[in-house]
């Protein structure tokens, strides 16, 4: 028999479908199957298939809206990268304050990357400036990542009130897909070089982007809560 905590987690995940016409019927049917003794693995399989298939169908039905949501979210990426670069540089101001960005050295297109190379460079300067500066810069990066993630999520949700869950989930997924290869290569580089600097770089990148994705998810929940409270699209 399934543990109630596991059932609650699966049912919570099913809430993704709660704006579909058959949400109550699906949850009721799964509950009835469960009371007849279907396994925990079966219940989770049914939940994941229901959520994944609805997600895929919703994106397919609203391709243009999904594209617009992603375009808006990713278009804000340069503001995020410049903002956190400014914050890191400000945290070490007085020691090595340099112009915000040298576009000759860093092409503008790099501003759209989660692995924006100016950040580790500036963190290197912060590290040389001493532990307090470095720790402050790392903390600032994490806080900015959470705030940016949540803010973009709220913007995307507000632009797509009818499909906010799907488009915010898609945004988080694209972020994860973008981050994973970089995180993998940084981890591999850290493992093969075994240098403290490389390990630190990989750790900061992972922490920063985990904070960013967490922010997106948190923003999604905040939007959902606000929409439920007002009982209409936020």
């Amino acid at each position, binding site marked *: 028999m399934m543990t109630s905590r596991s059932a609650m987690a699966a049912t919570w995940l099913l809430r993704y479908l709660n704006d579909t016409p058959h949400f109550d019927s*699906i949850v009721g049917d799964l509950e009835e199957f469960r009371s007849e003794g279907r396994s925990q693995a079966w219940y989770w399989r049914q939940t994941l298939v229901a959520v994944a298939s609805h997600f895929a169908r919703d994106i397919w039905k609203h391709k243009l809206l999904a594209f617009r949501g992603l375009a808006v979210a990713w278009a804000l990426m340069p503001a995020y990268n410049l903002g956190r670069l400014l914050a890191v540089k400000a945290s070490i101001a007085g020691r090595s304050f340099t112009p915000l960005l040298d576009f000759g050295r860093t092409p503008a297109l790099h501003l759209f990357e989660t692995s924006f190379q100016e950040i580790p460079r500036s963190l290197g300067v912060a590290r040389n400036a001493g532990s307090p500066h470095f720790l402050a810069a790392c903390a600032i990066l994490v806080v900015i990542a959470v705030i940016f993630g949540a803010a973009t999520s709220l913007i995307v949700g507000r632009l797509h009130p009818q499909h906010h869950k799907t488009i915010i989930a898609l945004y988080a997924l694209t972020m994860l897909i973008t981050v994973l290869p970089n995180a993998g290569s940084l981890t591999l580089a850290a493992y093969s070089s075994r240098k403290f600097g490389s390990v630190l770089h990989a750790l900061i990148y992972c922490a920063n982007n985990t904070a960013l994705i967490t922010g997106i998810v948190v923003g999604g929940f905040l939007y959902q809560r606000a929409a439920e409270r007002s009982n209409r699209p936020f």
Partner: protein
Amino acid sequence: MRDNIGNFELMILLALIRLGDEAYGVPIAKEIETRSGREISVASVYAALDRLATKQLVSSELGEPTPERGGRAKRYFRITAKGLREVRDTRRVLLKFWEGIPKLERGGA
């Protein structure tokens, strides 16, 4: 113009005919699982029922909530006259296709 129904949709319509007044998600899913011999997703049953409802091949009504369903009501489905015609037409067409393929009928390649 006739509606095209897929294999899974046809299975659901046949399950509705077999189950009569007791056709809601759980028995429909069980019927298909028993007869097809494979596990099916409850959500896919509802997605197919949705498509069939759009084509006006099935209708539905809400039943009473029950405790074993966590207080959630059953949604009963019923095949419409148009749905029955569709099943008959599909059967006729499929039987025509089967004619002249004796090897397959005997379980051959």
